[in-house]
Every structure is written in structure tokens, then in C-alpha cells.
């Protein structure tokens, strides 16, 4: 039952450079002696899809020589607290103290290939796989012990790594039971998992271990990696994506800037390496001043963006068509509105960064990519290397909220590493690079039309959504990497990526007999990819603004109107909850209280959001006073983590709704720093209150993206109540409120 090759590969990889293992110290959960063992119930449902590939217990979990347990997950830490959630799940099933479980996050050749860490799937996929693997491990260990101790199974307990007989003093520790071997059993249903009402960690607020390191200034992030002899690199990016390098004069660079190692030119890719980081910064500046690029006009005039989008869109594709929506709308009593959302940025607080080392055999890359295995494929394609000769270690980074720049930074670093073998190259993007070159969240137009019947119920609804792609994440197509598009032999993206994300939540979750959804895809002027909640933010802004408009026409209370159109009791429950949370609010002059609801992806987590705000009558300026959310994500794994994600998602969405917009002229992106792309600051932050409806017997639903979409709509609805002005075009700025008739 061992697999020595797998073991030694892990060992080998662990000896190269920095790997954070992360045993935790969590005194609050110390073991009591003589625990009562929780009962187990057979789980008979589906196993996560990733378990088709990684089906053996030892792919997920190994017993170390000292009896602690190490859990492997192919997901990466993005600030969502996945590490502690996975730790809790494993500790729970094995009846172990938390600090005896370490979690090893994504590393190629070591952890399971779990694709991307995205779409709020980490808990559903990774933590659940670990749950079933750990539960299987437990029953295998008990079976082994039963044979070894010659004791019947029902007399044995496993607690904190020791298996004991309850009738005599026989016992054995799990590491002695396994003797260096690992459990290779395939995980199959039924899996005996711990009864959820007897959970000790799962569902509770479990503190994260990494925050202690963060506050003390310990090395945590990709930016903090240091290796002996490491050198620093910067890239000089072109003015825009169609620019070409005409000439470069770097003859005097070494005289002007000390410490220069090398300039690398490959087509329109221009990089420079230096001994010290600030020397690389100065070299980048020097090269920018001493290079000439073409600057073709490549973007439409910004004020015509939405017309431009309509012009270039493909013929519409019908996504859903229930009943007779078009015919019913023609009968009249129809309301139509158009809503728009501009391009917005991920805007990670730390620009892209990566470290790479080519040891003349294997290319090692340290990255905060959300998908190290797909990144490996993309790098292999760009560099014409075998994937097996590329080793990628996931290291936490600053939050990036979707596909932002870590992969491109990794590609830059990899390319430079091949040019300068034997040295660790640390590549850091500038803020200007980050703001100008990250793949944005697509601009979206939503044309909505609906009609009401004689009882004021929605009879028909048509959504027409204009959208670009929502994922151009790395894959075996090298063109998914920015770097590859700029090389002498460039690769352009072969496919438009995942466009379906654009109409995510484009069809309302409400029960409407005649319902149609059409997608109008376009290949827009700006680089785009997935940004937290994809199209759902724009689409829910549109749908939930429109629901308030329809409720007003129908002469109904907006929340009652929503409930009238819902048959899902869990959806109704979150709305009732948020209604109760705000029941005592008294709204002052110039203030408004707005609501919105959504079920993310129409099959994932539920959220109802309320926002109380004030509109300054003179200026039109909006100040948020308080935001509430009631959410239901099924079984809760880490209550505090879920609340933290929900609060953060709401504040980020509020910032999108009120402030954010990528700006450009016809030659370049102009929102190149935080003064030109302002986001919410501390003075704008309202109070936030989140209620979680825990449903321990329901499947886990994703948590990171649920509350953001309705937050934008609730703000728009509150602005309307406060000022009488309905804003159709994001962001909701002071000019739009004060200028509108």
C-alpha cells in the first residue's frame, strides 16, 4: 500500500527552496482526555469531481512519522481562509487536535490537480474531498488496528492519532500502525462521516493561523520570498497591446544605472535584470525613455463604449426560453430598461510578482496563480518545454479576486529565468503595469423587458445581455499569457475563453412563466478575464433594480413583490431575515433604504442585502450608512471565514457600484494609478452586519461571491428611494444623481 515514487518526489521537491508547511498553534482547541466518540453516518451522495482523478486517500492525506497528519489540497490561499477550513475538516473526521494537522496547498507534482481556485469552489471541491479522504483514512486505520491488536472493530476508538481498545489497555499510534506506509485505499461511497451535530470545529468560527504572521511582519507573500543570489527584474510594457518596438538604445544603460545584469528583448517583450530591486526600477525608467514604440489607435472613444459594443456584438444566442416570452410581451403593459456596467479592475493591492529559477534542467516557478497546473501547461506551450520539466509552487499573494496578473508575472519571470540560468529571478510589476495590463471584468449591457398581468405579477420577461468573455485564464494555449502575445513569435489566444460567465444570473431566479435570456457576445477592445462573480454583478444590478421598478408599477412593496415571485423557501428565508434585521430602521431626510436578492448562479448561495444611505441633496454625493446581508450557504464550514468573505464582498461591490470604472483614450489605458482609479477608502466605509443561516444538513454552497451582486443593486435602489433618481449606468456618481432629470 505504499507508493515510494510519489513519496520521494514530494521529498525532493520539499528540499528546493521555500515551502510553507504551516503547522498551527491553536491553544483554544486542546484535547480533553477520554472523549466520547461521535457517531458516524454513511455519506451516499456524489464525490467531488476531482476525486475521479485523485481517488486515493494518500493523494489528499498522509500520516507523518511523528503521528501528525499532512493534508494536500490543490487549491491556493487567496485570503479566503481555505487553509484553516481544510484543516478543520480533516481534524474533525480524524478526531484530532487542529494543531496536529498541517495543510500543504497547491504545488505541481505534490498536490492533487484541482485546476483553478475560482468560482467559490474551494470548499465544495477541496474541503469536501479532504472530508471523504480523512473519513476513509479513519475507517482504514481502525480496520488495520483491529487486525494488529486482534480486537474487534467496535471496541476501538481513534483519537488524536492513537487507536485504543475500550475494553482493555491495548493501543497503537497511527504512525506505528502504518510504519512509513500510506493509505492507498480508493475513496468510495458510502463514506462513514462524522454526524454533523457532533462537530467540534466545522461550522464554528475558527480563527485563521496566518493572521498572526501577517501582523508580525513574517514572510507570508510571494513578494516576501528571498533566495541567496536572487536578482531583480522589471518589464517595460508597450503603450498598448498593438504597439511595436521600433528602436531601443540601451548602450549607455550600464553606465547610467549601477548593478545592471542584462536587458532581454524578444519581439515586443522588453525586460531588464539588476542586482538590486531599485536598480531594476531605474533601468525600467531608463529603457522606457530610450525606446520607441508605435502607438496605433486601438480603443474606441470612451463615451461611445456602449454603442461600440452593440456594433461589434455577434448575433444573439438564445440561452433560455420558457413559455412564450416574446409573444406575451407584445400584448402590452410592458416596462423596458437598459442598464450598463463599465470595465472594472481586480485592482489587487500588490501588483503582479513571481520568482523563477532555471536550474538547467527544471524550471522552478513560485507564483500566486489561482491555477498552478493550468499555468504549467501555458508556460510549457510558451517556452516549448515539457510540463514535467516545470515545477510550480503556490505561494500566497495579495488578494486578486479572479484572474488577474500573477500568471503573467510568472510567465515574465520564467522567460527571464531561461535567459539567466542558475539564478532566482524576482519579477515585480509596477502599479502602472498592473492597472494598464491586467485583464478587466468585462463591460456589460443589460436590456430588460417585462410585463405584468392584471394582478401585478410578472407574466413575461426577456433579458438581453451584451458581454465579452469572463475567463481567459491560462491553459495549454500559450496566448492566454500576456507575455506570449508580445514575443517575437507571438501566440494569440485561440479561443475567446469562457463567455458563458457573462450571462451568469442574467435570467431572474423568480418564477416567471414566460422567460427568455439572450446573450450577445462581443470581442471587446480591452483585455478581459474573470473577476469575482463574473457577469452576476452587472446582471443582478440590472435585474434587482428592475424588480424595484416593476414593484412600483405594480404598486407593491419591493420585498413582498419579490417573495410573491419565489417558490424556494430558502430564498424567501433570507429575504425575511434581512427584512427583520432592518425592521427597526427609521430612515431620515435624504436617506434611503434599498433591498436586493440573488441566488448566485441561480443554484449556489443565497443572499438578501439591504443598504441604508444618504444622498446629499446639494451635491448628489452618496454616503453609505449601513449594509446588511442575510446569507444561506448550506452547511457552514468556518462561520467566521464565511462572514469575513461576505463583508468583504459587499464592501468591494459597493466600491464597484459607487466609484469604479476603467478609463482610456484611443491609444492607452488612462486609469493607471489609484488617483485615476479611486476605490472606497476608510472614510466611506459603512457599518456592515451579516447573518448566516446555517443549514448543516444541506450541501455546502460557495461563499465568496454571493453577497456582492445584490449589494450593487441594493445601493441603486436605496439611491432611488433617497433621491427619486434611478441610476441605470454604473458607477453611481454624484454627477449622475445631480444631473439626471
Amino acid at each position, binding site marked *: 500500500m505504499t507508493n515510494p515514487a510519489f513519496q520521494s518526489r514530494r521529498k525532493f521537491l520539499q528540499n528546493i527552496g521555500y515551502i510553507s508547511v504551516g503547522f498551527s498553534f491553536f491553544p483554544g482547541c486542546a484535547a480533553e482526555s477520554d472523549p466520547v466518540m461521535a457517531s458516524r453516518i454513511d455519506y451516499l451522495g456524489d464525490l467531488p469531481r476531482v476525486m475521479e482523478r485523485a481517488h486515493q486517500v494518500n493523494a489528499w492525506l498522509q500520516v507523518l512519522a511523528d503521528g501528525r497528519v499532512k493534508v494536500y489540497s490543490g487549491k491556493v490561499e*487567496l*485570503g*479566503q*481562509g481555505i487553509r484553516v477550513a481544510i484543516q478543520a475538516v480533516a481534524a474533525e473526521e480524524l478526531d484530532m487536535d487542529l494543531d496536529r494537522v498541517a495543510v500543504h496547498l497547491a504545488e505541481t507534482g505534490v498536490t492533487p490537480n484541482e485546476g483553478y481556485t475560482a468560482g467559490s469552489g474551494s470548499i465544495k471541491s477541496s474541503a469536501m474531498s479532504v472530508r471523504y479522504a480523512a473519513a476513509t483514512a479513519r475507517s482504514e486505520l481502525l480496520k488495520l488496528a483491529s487486525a494488529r491488536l486482534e480486537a474487534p472493530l467496535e471496541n476501538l476508538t481513534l483519537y488524536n492519532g492513537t487507536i485504543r481498545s475500550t475494553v482493555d489497555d491495548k493501543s497503537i499510534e497511527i504512525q506505528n500502525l502504518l510504519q512509513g506506509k500510506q493509505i492507498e485505499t480508493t475513496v468510495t461511497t458510502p463514506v462513514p462521516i462524522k454526524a454533523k451535530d457532533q462537530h467540534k470545529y466545522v461550522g464554528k468560527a475558527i*480563527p*485563521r493561523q*496566518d*493572521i*498572526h504572521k*501577517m*501582523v*508580525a*511582519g*513574517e*514572510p*507570508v*507573500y510571494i*513578494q*516576501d520570498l*528571498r533566495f541567496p543570489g536572487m536578482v531583480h527584474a522589471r518589464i517595460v510594457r508597450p503603450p498598448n497591446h498593438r504597439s511595436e518596438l521600433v528602436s531601443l538604445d540601451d548602450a549607455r544603460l550600464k553606465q547610467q544605472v*549601477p548593478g545592471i545584469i542584462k536587458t532581454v528583448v524578444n519581439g515586443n517583450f522588453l525586460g531588464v535584470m539588476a542586482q*538590486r*530591486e*531599485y*536598480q531594476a*526600477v531605474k533601468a525600467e525608467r531608463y529603457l522606457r525613455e530610450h525606446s520607441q514604440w508605435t502607438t496605433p489607435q486601438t480603443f474606441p472613444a470612451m463615451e461611445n463604449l456602449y454603442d461600440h459594443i452593440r456594433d461589434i456584438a455577434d448575433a444573439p444566442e438564445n440561452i433560455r426560453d420558457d413559455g412564450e416570452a416574446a409573444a406575451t410581451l407584445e400584448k402590452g403593459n410592458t416596462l423596458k430598461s437598459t442598464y450598463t456596467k463599465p470595465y472594472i479592475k481586480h*485592482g*489587487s*493591492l*500588490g*501588483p503582479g510578482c513571481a520568482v523563477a529559477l532555471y536550474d538547467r534542467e527544471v524550471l522552478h516557478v513560485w507564483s500566486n496563480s489561482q491555477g498552478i497546473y493550468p499555468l504549467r501547461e501555458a508556460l510549457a506551450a510558451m517556452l516549448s518545454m515539457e510540463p514535467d520539466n516545470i515545477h510550480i509552487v503556490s505561494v*500566497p*499573494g*495579495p*488578494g486578486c*479576486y479572479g484572474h488577474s496578473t500573477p500568471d503573467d508575472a510568472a510567465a515574465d519571470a520564467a522567460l527571464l529565468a531561461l535567459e539567466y540560468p542558475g539564478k532566482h529571478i524576482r519579477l*515585480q510589476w*509596477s*502599479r502602472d503595469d498592473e492597472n494598464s495590463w491586467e485583464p478587466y471584468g468585462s463591460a456589460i449591457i443589460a436590456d430588460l423587458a417585462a410585463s405584468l398581468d392584471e394582478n401585478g405579477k410578472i407574466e413575461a420577461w426577456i433579458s438581453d445581455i451584451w458581454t465579452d468573455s469572463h475567463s481567459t485564464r491560462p491553459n495549454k494555449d500559450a496566448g492566454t499569457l500576456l507575455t506570449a502575445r508580445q514575443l517575437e513569435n507571438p501566440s494569440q489566444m485561440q479561443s475567446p475563453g469562457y463567455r458563458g460567465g457573462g450571462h451568469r444570473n442574467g435570467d431572474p431566479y423568480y418564477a416567471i412563466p414566460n422567460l427568455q435570456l439572450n446573450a450577445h457576445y462581443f470581442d471587446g477592445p480591452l483585455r478581459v478575464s474573470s473577476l469575482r462573480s463574473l457577469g452576476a454583478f452587472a446582471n443582478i444590478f440590472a435585474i434587482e433594480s428592475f424588480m424595484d421598478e416593476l414593484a412600483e408599477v405594480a404598486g407593491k412593496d419591493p420585498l413582498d413583490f419579490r417573495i410573491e415571485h419565489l417558490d424556494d423557501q430558502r430564498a424567501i428565508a433570507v429575504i425575511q431575515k434581512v427584512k427583520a434585521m432592518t425592521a427597526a430602521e427609521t430612515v431620515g431626510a435624504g436617506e434611503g433604504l434599498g433591498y436586493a436578492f440573488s441566488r448566485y448562479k441561480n443554484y449556489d448561495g443565497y443572499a438578501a442585502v439591504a443598504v441604508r444611505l444618504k444622498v446629499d441633496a446639494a451635491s448628489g454625493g452618496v454616503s453609505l450608512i449601513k449594509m446588511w446581508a442575510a446569507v444561506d450557504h448550506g452547511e457552514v464550514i468556518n462561520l*467566521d471565514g464565511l462572514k*469575513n*468573505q461576505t*463583508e*468583504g*464582498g*459587499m*464592501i*468591494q461591490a459597493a*466600491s464597484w457600484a459607487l466609484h469604479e470604472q476603467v478609463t482610456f483614450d484611443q491609444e492607452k489605458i488612462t486609469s493607471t*494609478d*489609484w*488617483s485615476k482609479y479611486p*476605490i*472606497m*477608502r*476608510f*472614510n466611506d*466605509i459603512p*457599518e*456592515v452586519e451579516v447573518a448566516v443561516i446555517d443549514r448543516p444538513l444541506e450541501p455546502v454552497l460557495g461563499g465568496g461571491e454571493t453577497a456582492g451582486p445584490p449589494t450593487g443593486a441594493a445601493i441603486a435602489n436605496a439611491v432611488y428611494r433617497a433621491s427619486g433618481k434611478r441610476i441605470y449606468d454604473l458607477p453611481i456618481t454624484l454627477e449622475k444623481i445631480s444631473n439626471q432629470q
Partner: protein
Amino acid sequence: MPRYTLNVNNTPREVEAEGDTPLLYVLRDHLELNGPKFGCGVAQCGSCMVLIDGKAAVSCTLPVSSVGQSEITTLEGLADDNGKLHAVQEAMVQEQAAQCGYCLNGVIISAVSLLNKNPNPGISDIKNALQANLCRCGTHTRMIKAVAAAKNR
């Protein structure tokens, strides 16, 4: 190349760097400190903040040649001689006031600077003091709570 003796976290530290090198790069690259972070390089986000003579300041635009003998304190230098963390640091852990945590350095430095001059700030004082700091994850409310809790420690 010029040499400077900086006073960092109560220790004299000798560095060799061109005089225009911003303090941030000296702290991170030469002195291998992790507290101050690079976020924008143009004094707009607060990620790189340090205390200079007890007051929060951005380090990404401050040339090392202008630092002189000022006392520079980074996140690493906030703990007391026994290694006990500063009340603001402890409160951030207590409130679990981080998602990615990349902004925490600047937020903690700004908060310590505030408490240095105003031991009993109200919520709006706290918000004002953190106005130079960006947090992209939206962890603001927890951070505000943490600073309010820290003042009572």
C-alpha cells in the same frame, strides 16, 4: 556607492545604496524586512508605511538620503522587548481583521501612529487616520473594530 547608517527598529543598520533609493527598497531588499509592502510606489495606497519618529509615513517615495537619524519602526519592530505584540497587532488577530492581509502593514502602522498622539480616538478619528490606507479585500470594518478595541488594551 554611498553608505548610510539608519536607525531601524532601535538598531543601527548600515546600508550601501544610491541616495535616491526610496526607503521602502532599502528596508525590503537590503535589510530583508517584510513588514513594509510595495503597493503603488507613488504614495497612494499606504502599503509601504513605516513609523518615522513615531508618526506614520509612506516609505516608497522617501529617498534614503533624506532619512538621517530618524527612528524608523517597521511592523517587525512594534513588539516590546519581551516579544509581546503591540495592542493594535493583537487586536487585528483577535478580530480576525484580514483577508489577504496585504494592507495590514500600513493599517497597523497608521493605527499605532494615531494612538501615539490620541490614546482615545472615536470611530471617525480612526477612519480619518486610516484614510491613506487602501484595503481591496473590504476588511475595513474589522480593522476599524480592531483599532477601537486596541485603544482599551
